[in-house]
């Protein structure tokens, strides 16, 4: 990642929160945790109102026009926010932002705008650690957490050490790796409903791996993967609590976990 070779930016850094549609609807706490962490790290956070969805369902289904339509609205929203960076609590969604230039491979003007946004977009933990050099986490959570590396974050953005480096600052928490950390959880956006039986095979293997770690909490950096794994763990009767890593880092680990009632 060549951006990290540039020296750390001078505060205040202006950052746009890209909330991601799943966090927006299913897990607002992830958004608040992200805002809190960015502010703790000295950023000025703005939330562009014009954002909806990055167009990943369209792009991954071969619908280039649909993906372009949604990406144009997003690009405009982030441009108008006049920020230094765009940050999302998701490797998958930032991976999509990084694909926007390809989405506009037949449209030079938009491709240029897409590239400008893509170049300043970061996954949250990687932004904190690689870009800001910030790891002063002020959080406490008693227990053992298994960490799941989401595929796009890990392979496309190189996110693996950063969340662990940050979690090392959470007092009382031990972090364990899965035995098959490279394995996809089977979410895959629309894949999990298009190919429900394959997806459920995959998430079953993942759930067994999680349970075998002996952890009481599962953490990851993508709400999609988390919903998937949480759903399978619950169906298997596991009491493991499932949270986005940002919640724990922002010391919000005492809220009801994903899928828990009040």
């Amino acid at each position: 990642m060549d951006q990290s070779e540039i020296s750390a930016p001078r505060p205040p850094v202006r950052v746009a929160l890209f909330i991601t549609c799943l966090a927006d609807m299913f897990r607002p706490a992830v958004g608040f945790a992200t805002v809190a962490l960015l502010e703790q790290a000295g950023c000025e956070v703005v939330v562009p109102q014009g954002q909806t969805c990055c167009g990943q369902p369209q792009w991954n289904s071969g619908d280039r026009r649909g993906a372009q339509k949604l990406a144009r609205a997003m690009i405009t929203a982030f441009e108008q926010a006049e920020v230094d960076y765009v940050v999302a609590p998701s490797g998958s969604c930032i991976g999509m932002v990084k694909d926007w230039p390809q989405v506009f491979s037949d449209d030079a003007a938009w491709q240029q705008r897409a590239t400008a946004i893509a170049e300043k977009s970061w996954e949250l933990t990687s932004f904190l650690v690689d870009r800001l050099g910030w790891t002063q986490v002020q959080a406490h959570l008693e227990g053992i957490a298994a960490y799941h590396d989401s595929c796009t974050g890990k392979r496309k953005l190189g996110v693996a050490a950063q969340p662990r480096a940050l979690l090392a600052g959470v007092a009382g928490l031990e972090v364990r790796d899965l035995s098959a950390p490279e394995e996809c959880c089977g979410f895959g956006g629309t894949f999990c409903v298009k190919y429900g039986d394959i997806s459920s095979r995959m998430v079953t293997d993942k759930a067994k791996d999680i349970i075998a770690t002996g952890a009481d909490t599962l953490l990851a950096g993508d709400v999609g993967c988390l919903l998937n794994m949480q759903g399978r763990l619950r169906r298997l009767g596991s009491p493991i609590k499932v949270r986005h890593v940002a919640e724990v880092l922002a010391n919000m680990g005492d809220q009801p976990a994903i899928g828990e009632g009040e």
Partner: protein
Amino acid sequence: MQQSTSHLFHDNVRHAVNDDNLRVSLETMKTGFRFKRLAAIDRLPEFEDLREEGKALKDHVLAHLDLYLEAFEKKVIEQGGMVHWCANAAEAQQVVLDICRSVGARTVTKGKSMISEEIGLNDYLEKNGVQPIETDLGEYIIQLRHEAPSHIIAPAIHVRKEMVADAFRATHTHRPADRDLSEPRSLLDEAREELRDKFLAADVGITGANMLIAETGTSVIVTNEGNGDLTQLLPKVHVVLASLEKVVPTLNDASTVLRLLARSATGQEASTYVTFSSGPRRADDLDGPEQYHVILLDNGRSKMLGSEFQDMLRCIRCGACMNHCPVYGAIGGHAYGWVYPGPMGSVLTPALIGIENAAPLPNASTLCGRCESVCPMKIPLPRMLRAWREQEFERHLTPPRAVWALKVHTALASRLRLYRWATRLGAWALRIWGGRRGSFDHIPFAQDWTDSRTMAAPQYGRTFMDLYANRPNAHITNKER
């Protein structure tokens, strides 16, 4: 050409995920192949450089394919062999049959060849009175079981050893019924004994080719059983089945590919046998075939040149992508419905049999990217899976239900006010419906999810955007849109 059931992928999958024997076999594969590959790569620090080298080599070949193929042909002819250019499966079948008939062949022995599978050679020869005998143990097993291979380097990986014993008992009826076939060793020994006479009786030996070397007019095969050598040395005629993209310029280049291949496939430094064949026996050779034929099969590959699928032609058939694919690991190879399974199959199959006949394959992936990360030739498999999806969408091959869902989603997500209203309503309604439990056990129209998973209800029953806007110090930009 081999018949395909790729269009029936969904049914194949349902069958596969409920097959307990398959489950056990695939588990062993995951631990075996993956672990061995990793260990081999750890022992070779320059593996990454080697990948780059291999990729550059193949890209160069593909840019000058005609040149190298012609050079190869020239050299083969010089050495007394023959090259047969075949545009499609039917032509290749015919050429092989003609060669068999020209020497009055009754039986042919065969080394492992995916091209043979691709052109459906065994069925064709049998129909025409020539008995093909597979000599690779895995291929022999599936031939007895009347099956297709389920993996490109381990064709019988789906078959457990008890099932092999059953197949042997059913076929080798001249042997004592109470013999012990409980150990892999005893199975191997029995297969060897059965095959020994067949090697000697065969009139024609057919092998595949892992590579063709232009410089020397050589075909190369890689095996771990030595069956390929016997197949090509003992009979009067040696027929090599190869596809166009198998050619490399020099011996040195071949060694680059071999180093990548063995490590990526089985985690070996080198395969047990690497056999180079350059034409029929010379006057002073002690053994070797009297005739040497190379079938050069196109079957749709030249159309891939210059297309967005050209990179697929770098494939060296190591199988690493399927060994590491979570989808292959869940359903095995047969579900893919044609010759090539796993990620490489989901890209290659549509190119060879038509996307309209293989539409589900490119979609059956989470695009997790692990295949690309292990591919020795750095083939961008996920990018090409997505490219097929785009072609499907443009040609209206995407299932109508999916198109409709995308249209609705695009319409919603591109209308900001409507989107905010709909997500607010959705979060609120789902929260109320989900009740105090916080998740759903069952959601109508989403059984594909809830059959195996609960579904978390939205937290708070309100969206982030809604909650954040009501914060006293909210910092919202471009509100007016």
